């Protein structure tokens, strides 16, 4: 019994080392010179200088890319949360003409992969001169997140007792008031899930960012890192410093909120 448990621990620990080793290698390589990295890729650094991080952040543009990612993520997530909670509330609690067909349309959106519409979306954005602006990412990230967000929020409100809303109605509350003062506070758990899923999807999105934003000053972390890695193709230390700077803060955030993030990502994927 005991031996079996130790064997299990050993297997899973070995796998965890395999999972974390690449990240560890990336981290300590950012303290080695280019010569050390290419001559002995495995060796540990001998000294710790942080100058390369400042260089990657300012001259390499990682700081700029991070700012662009923050703007695109924050704006699209805010739009998803407000529009989807309003629509989710109306579609769950209010009976009006067309509500059924609107639900069908959004359900279709749950199933459509980005491949099925990005070619014409690109043309549309070209037509409206949206490419190479901040809207080129905010609009698609928000609208791609809306179907799943509405679905999660609507299911959550469906499960609440209807007396709650009837009582508000009897007290003379209008639908807008019910939304703002009653519903918004009580659906917070659903909003946390939706927010985490939308924010991480936007933060990590690559295909549309690659196609819609060529302007260096507007690139987000995924596309920015790619142009960084081709600019500094022989400067290994810079590359590792850049990788470390975009991953370590995310890992720190994740460790702090791991329960919510794991729940948000898995629920979002399973229900979507």
């Amino acid at each position, binding site marked *: 019994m005991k031996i079996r448990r130790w064997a299990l621990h050993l297997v899973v620990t070995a796998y*965890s080392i395999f999972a974390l080793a690449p990240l560890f290698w990336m981290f300590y390589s950012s303290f080695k010179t280019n010569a050390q990295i290419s001559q002995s890729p495995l060796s540990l650094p001998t000294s710790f200088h942080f100058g390369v991080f400042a260089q990657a952040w300012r001259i390499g543009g990682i700081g700029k890319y991070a700012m662009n990612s923050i703007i695109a993520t924050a704006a699209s997530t805010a739009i998803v949360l407000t529009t989807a909670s309003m629509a989710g509330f109306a579609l769950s609690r209010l009976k009006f003409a067309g509500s059924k067909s609107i639900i069908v349309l959004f359900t279709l959106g749950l199933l459509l992969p980005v491949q099925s519409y990005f070619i014409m979306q690109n043309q*549309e954005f070209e037509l409206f001169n949206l490419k190479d602006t901040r809207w080129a990412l905010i609009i698609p990230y928000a609208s791609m997140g809306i179907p799943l967000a509405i679905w999660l929020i609507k299911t959550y409100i469906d499960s609440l007792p209807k007396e709650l809303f009837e009582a508000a109605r009897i007290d003379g509350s209008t639908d807008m008031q019910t939304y703002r003062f009653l519903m918004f506070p009580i659906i917070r758990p659903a909003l946390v899930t939706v927010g985490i899923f939308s924010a991480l999807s936007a933060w*990590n999105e690559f295909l549309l960012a*690659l196609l819609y934003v060529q302007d260096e000053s507007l690139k987000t972390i995924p596309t920015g890192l790619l142009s960084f890695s081709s600019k500094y193709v022989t400067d290994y230390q810079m590359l590792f410093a850049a990788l470390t700077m975009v991953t370590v803060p995310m890992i720190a955030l994740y460790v702090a909120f791991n329960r919510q993030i794991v729940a948000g990502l898995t629920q979002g994927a*399973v229900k979507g």
Partner: protein
Amino acid sequence: MKPTSRLGVFILVAPAVLLYSFAVLLPFIGTIVLSFMRWDGFDSPTFAGIANYTRAFADAIFRSTFIHVGIYIVATLFLEVLLGLLLAGFTSSLKHSSFYRIALFIPVMLPMVVIAVLWRAIFNSDYGILNAILSSFGLASWQHIWLGDTKTALLSICFVSGWVFSGFYMAIFTAALNRLPSDVIESARLDGSGEMNIFTKIKVPMIRQVTSIAILICITGGLQGFDLFYVLTDGGPYHTTEVPTTFMVKSVFRDGEFGYGSALAIIVSLIGLSMALIFNIWQKRTRVDVEY
């Protein structure tokens, strides 16, 4: 309930509907229309009937993308779903397992491009650790130009994908295993069943609903795979890692074949949609009464 005012309903629903229609629904319909056109992006499009579709089915490279993505999906079913299930089974019977769960999920939430750039460095033949580790174990003959060799490129991508997503499926399965009623497992244990038997004969069958969802996510997600392929090989060497999406992006944005690219997009989307549909019908048929 009846709404208090029609204007109120409009204000609540319109923003989501308009945004979604503008950026998803209209472009989707447009892509369907465009798939029956011939268009280089500049001149006015001309009607092409089903020419784009017949061309797609005859295109050897496009057909080969399904073989590559098929290999990728089968490999990741093992490296992600099965491995995730085993890891969840291992850790859920251990007391101090939260470290594993937290650690193995880290790659899942990092941007795929960042991971791909990191693994490109690991596979690098000048300074990458993979070849360095092999030579330090005296296996220098195993060294490869991993991503540049037609024999190893696709498998290397599958491997990275497994490294990323095994933790994701592990999280899904761990949540499912933790929701299982403990009395069933306790009584099996009292009857003298070994842990191994309990896992394979009781726990795994009880979470089969979750397992089938995991398999569906792995298949449909694999069909849409792009980021890893684009950064690690961009379809090369000699199109041996070309998948539908990398090929589609090249057709449209490098060759300017908007109609043809749209037809490819619709074919791939239809395959994904029909898989989800078949899965749904099959799920309804085999639905068990108890919700876990």
